[in-house]
């Protein structure tokens, strides 16, 4: 006997998608629906809520199989456009990480460094159809006699190209300030001294994992919008940690869950995978991800009805605390406060700046919604779930 009044299965929702009857709304639209109709009625009406996020996501990269040479080669070291890739896999399999800069990058020798080109830029160039320059070095064997290889190659010419991001889509993230007396250049951007700026990076109410706080529907096998194409959630991401303080609505108040995602790079687009350069920090890649959330019951309706007023994060000092692993915060703020452009930290008003694109996040949620409405995209039912925590939720109608 189910504890819920509304009970839908993935199969039922997918049947409705196929017959063109599914009701699909974005996470932004769902807020008002749940507010006005209550979670039970919202669950009856809505089948799928689409989420979206577009921001710099380190811990991303791609596997390439670059095609054999004659004579054959077992690459030991490899570079694409002078960006080192990891070649210790097999003969011609390599992994290119997005935070890897070109080998001759001046890094932070001229501080703060610019980090103009790295692995993320290579991926973007490949998606734009550009030729990239691939170099490999090897020691010869009887079966792989070649010692080196240099060639220009396009994405279409790669035998295999798999986007494989071990940690994406952080469920919430710190709001960064700098209490030191000099500007710091961090992965959270440049932060002015004496707490004169605060940077934050989350799609908030649009963010996938904040709409499914206990990972009921996002798990291994969830089909997603990834980099403009179709991808899958393939594991919980590295550093996934469900055991952190949460609000009554289930959303974590710290950086908690993460997703590992994969998909065929060849069907993705440079509009949704962009190489980025973060001043003084390094290279990375902005990744577009959209996850559809099935409204199986009123609890999922309630979860997806969450709004920025009800999602909180902690304010962390990146001038000293973060680097020295001091576990301390300077209060908590809601995403509604952050989006207003001003927060209060220790009694002082601080301007707040976003690093995650809300415009693009919403665009992704809209694209995914349209894919589902067009019957082009069905939901994947997770075959295994992320580590989570026990919870109880009081659902008022």
């Amino acid at each position, binding site marked *: 006997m189910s504890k819920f009044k509304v009970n839908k299965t993935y199969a039922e929702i997918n049947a409705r998608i196929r017959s063109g009857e599914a009701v699909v709304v974005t996470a932004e639209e769902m807020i008002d629906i749940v507010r006005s109709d209550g979670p039970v009625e919202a669950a009856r009406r809505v089948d799928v809520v689409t989420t979206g996020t577009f921001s710099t996501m380190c811990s991303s990269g791609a596997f390439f199989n670059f095609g054999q040479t004659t004579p054959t080669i077992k690459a030991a070291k490899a570079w694409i456009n002078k960006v080192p890739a990891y070649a210790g896999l097999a003969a011609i399999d390599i992994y290119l990480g997005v935070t890897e800069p070109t080998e001759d990058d001046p890094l932070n020798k001229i501080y703060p460094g610019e980090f103009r080109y790295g692995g993320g830029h290579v991926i973007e160039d490949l998606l734009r159809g550009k030729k990239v320059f691939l170099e490999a070095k090897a020691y010869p064997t009887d079966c792989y006699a070649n010692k080196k290889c240099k060639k220009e190659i396009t994405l279409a010419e790669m035998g295999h190209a798999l986007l494989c991001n071990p940690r994406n889509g952080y469920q919430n993230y710190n709001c960064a300030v700098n209490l030191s007396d000099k500007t710091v250049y961090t992965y959270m*951007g440049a932060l002015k001294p004496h707490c004169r700026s605060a940077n934050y990076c989350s799609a908030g109410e649009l963010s996938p994992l904040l709409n499914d706080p206990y990972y009921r529907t996002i798990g291994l096998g969830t089909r997603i919008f990834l980099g403009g194409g179709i991808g899958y959630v393939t594991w919980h991401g590295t550093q996934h940690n469900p055991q952190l303080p949460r609000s009554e609505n289930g959303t974590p108040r710290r950086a908690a869950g993460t997703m590992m995602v994969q998909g065929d790079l060849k069907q993705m687009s440079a509009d949704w995978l962009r190489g980025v350069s973060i001043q003084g920090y390094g290279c990375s890649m*902005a990744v577009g991800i959209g996850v559809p959330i099935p409204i199986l019951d009123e609890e999922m309706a309630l979860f997806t009805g969450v709004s920025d007023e009800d999602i909180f994060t902690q304010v962390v000092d990146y001038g000293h605390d973060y680097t020295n692993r001091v576990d301390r915060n300077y209060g908590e703020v809601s995403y509604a406060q952050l989006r207003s452009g001003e927060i209060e930290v220790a009694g002082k008003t601080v301007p707040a700046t976003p690093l995650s*694109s809300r415009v693009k996040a919403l665009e992704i949620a809209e694209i995914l919604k349209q894919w589902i409405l067009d019957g082009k995209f069905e939901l994947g039912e997770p075959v295994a779930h992320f580590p989570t925590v026990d919870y109880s939720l009081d659902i008022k109608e």
Partner: protein
Amino acid sequence: MYTRIYFLRFPKETCDKPIIYFLVTRFDVEFNILKADILPQREGIMIIELKGSRENVQESLSYLKDLGVKVERLAGKIWRDESKCFQCGACTGICPVGALSLHRPDMAVIFTPDKCTGCGLCVTICPVRAMEVSFDEIVEDALV
């Protein structure tokens, strides 16, 4: 009051003349020099904000042009590559004059060239290098 920011390019013959002093005394305009790079016997550049009645500002510009000073609106020297910008908002925190700002509640990043003072802080803070500031004629010519 009429306020505009201009980019001036001084020919090398003018570098020993107190031109800005004449602007103030003859045309009663307020000025704020935002950037100046003037070397003896070399061409110089200046970013200057002029404030006054529309007539006085226009007359001072004519005066400058008569002296051979090349005058351009600064707004024309700064642009955003719309195909690169993905509206993250990082630049809005660093822009000291609000030329890059967020439109609420949709959080679209708005660029208002008229407010820009040409400091260039946004150029390196932008993760995809969508902002371009060019005071270099050669670069500008190459773009045309």
